[in-house]
Every structure is written in C-alpha cells, then in structure tokens.
C-alpha cells in the first residue's frame, strides 16, 4: 500500500516544479498562536525526550554504586549543590508535566472524555504546578 509522496513534478501543473516543503521539525516546537492542546503536545514531546536522555544518564550514574561506598557517597555529595538541586526541580517538572498530560493523552487518545480535553488539560496542569511547587520546596529544604 502506498501513500502519495510530495511530487517532484506537479500533476495539476504540468511542466512546473512546485517548491517542496521539506520535513519541518520546527513545527513540533512552535506552540505560539496555537490552541492549548498544542502546548500539551509540545510539553509531552520536549519532556519525553528529556526524560529518555535522563533515563540513560541515570543508568550510567547508578553504576557508581558498583564502586561501593567511596564511589557512591562521593557522587551523592555532588548532588547537593544548588545547580544539581535546580536540575532536580527541572526533572521533577518534566516528570509531573509529562505524567499528568500523558494521563490526559491516554484518556483522550483512547476516545474518552474527548469533549473535555481542554478542561482536562487546565485541571491537570494546575495540579502539576501545585505538585511542582511542593516538590521544589521539599528538594531545596531537605
């Protein structure tokens, strides 16, 4: 089965070569002037890619445990710096944002609550902000 490709020569305009529109990946990250659900799409995509990267880094970091107490505790000391704590908060934002918006995508994408998908976004993102504030305070004060 085939789907039409972008034509190198137009059937409707013989002899003319339309200017092809190449794959525009920037269209994944341009939520401005778009509906609120587009922001949800961008959030999920950016956070998801960030979290995949984090998963790989996390597995590498956990290998410090194989080096015993000396290796791991030295690594833990690094993670108490303000820079690391800030990164932790960013990670938390990604997890909560991707998780709660993902819940919306799981429901709406299975055909449930479709008519309320915008309201669902607002409610879940409000919960996300509250959880992030609480988590951020705990991270910095622990």
């Amino acid at each position, binding site marked *: *089965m085939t*789907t*039409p*490709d*972008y*034509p190198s020569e*137009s*059937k*409707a*305009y013989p002899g*003319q*070569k*339309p*200017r*092809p*529109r190449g*794959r*525009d*990946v920037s*269209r*994944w990250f*341009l939520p*401005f*002037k*778009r*509906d609120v*659900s*587009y922001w*949800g*799409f961008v959030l*999920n*995509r950016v956070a998801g890619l960030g979290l995949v990267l984090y998963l790989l880094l996390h597995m590498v970091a956990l290998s410090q445990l194989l080096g015993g107490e000396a290796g791991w505790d030295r690594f833990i000391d690094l993670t108490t710096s303000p820079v690391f704590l800030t990164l932790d908060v960013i990670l938390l934002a990604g997890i909560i944002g991707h998780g709660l918006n993902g819940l*919306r*995508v799981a429901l*709406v*994408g*299975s*055909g*449930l609550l*479709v*008519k309320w*998908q915008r309201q669902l976004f607002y409610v879940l993102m409000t919960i996300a902000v509250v959880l992030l504030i609480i988590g951020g305070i705990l991270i910095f004060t622990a």
Partner: protein
Amino acid sequence: MTWTVTYEIARYKPGEPPRTDTFKVEIEPHRTVLDGIEMIWAYQDRTLTFRHACHHASCGSCAFVVNGVEVLPCIVEIQSVVENGGTLRCEPLYSFPVVSDLVVDMGPFFEKMRMMEMPIITPTGPLPQQPADDYNRFENCIECGMCMSACPVVATDPNYLGPAPLAAAHRIIQRPDIPEETKQRIWELVDSDNGLWRCHVAMECTAVCPSDVDPGGKIMDLRRLATANRIRKLLGLKPKLPVGVEDA
C-alpha cells in the same frame, strides 16, 4: 474610514528563490483579508498568485496562513486580526508544496482523500440509525487543507494520512451503502502506524477547521473503536466494529 495595513506576503516563482514582498493597503477595517490581497493584485502587483472562488467559506479554495494561523481569508475581517497600521504576514499553507506565491499543490492531499473513497454523489435522505446532525458532520468538510497545514505530524511525515482523510474514513466506514471490501481496505489504512496511531492529540486540526468537522474528535472516536475492539479480542469477546469492517 480606511486603515493602513501592511501585507508581508511570502512570494515564490519556480526558478527563483523564495522572498517576502511588502505591500501597503488602504482598506476599510470591516473588509476581509482576501479583499486586501485582491486589491494588491489589482493595483500593485499583477504577478501575485492566490486562489479564491466563493468568497463565503463554502469552497475552501482561498485558505492560507495569516500571522502564523491557518484561516479562510474570505471571511476574516481585517479588524479581527490587526490594528490600524499593523502588519499581516501571509504565507501559503504549511506542509503543501508551493506552486506559486500563496498557491499550493493540493494533489497529494486530494490523493489521500480519494483513498478514503469519499463519493462525490451522496444518496438522498438520512441513513438509518444516524442522528440527523451527525449525518451532516463530515459533509461539512470543504477540503480546504487547513487541518493538514496545522497538524505538526503532517509537517514531518508524508506517510501520515492526516486529519481530513481520517475524518473522511470515520464517515465512510459507518455508511451502509459502501461495499464491505472498500470499508475493510479503508480500515486497514486507518488502523495503522501511518493512520490513527501517528496522531499525538495536538487537536490543532479541530481548532483551525472552519467547517465544524472536528477531525480530532473523529480520530479519537476511531481510536476508541480500535482500542475497545482490541481489548475485547484480548478478553475473548466478540468484536464491535462498524458493519462490514473486520479486525484481522
């Protein structure tokens, strides 16, 4: 009373590099964006190419992008998108090959619609077991291509069927007059990685649709059918797809 509005129009002629031309127009604020384009063509640059036909949002020919958002310029008033002295940035629809200026090649899009076997002539009268307003749903589609332009996945994946063809499929597979082999072929196209499952619920298609088709909602409805049916199969229950469609 007229406003001074600046039109920044993305220009392209085959064999030349793309460029942006700027035109100033004196126009009444209640006139439409398309009126401004026609004034530019009539009084300033006869080489400007654009599509227009009905001038009342029933043909879908004139669709292009104004200030980053897909619109039918024949029904968009100047005063609703810009202030006096403001600028309108006009570009052709995204994700379509550009033939010239604001005219895009609709061929690949119409090919995908043809694959959904949308008949030109519809039998008269409502179909059985269809609520009257739902019968009118997809007939609203004017194939303007705005949903295809707004969709972030169509922008990068030429394989993806896209919102309008999937909304067409939603209609077709429920019609009792369409042959079963046709429905089955369409369902196989639709229930695939390049059909329903390429959609990421950005819902921009529904947001820009000028005709109340709600293609996003139609895609989610098809996904509900496919998901529920798959779960029923996993649980050993009978499938519940529309008449004539079988999940292999």
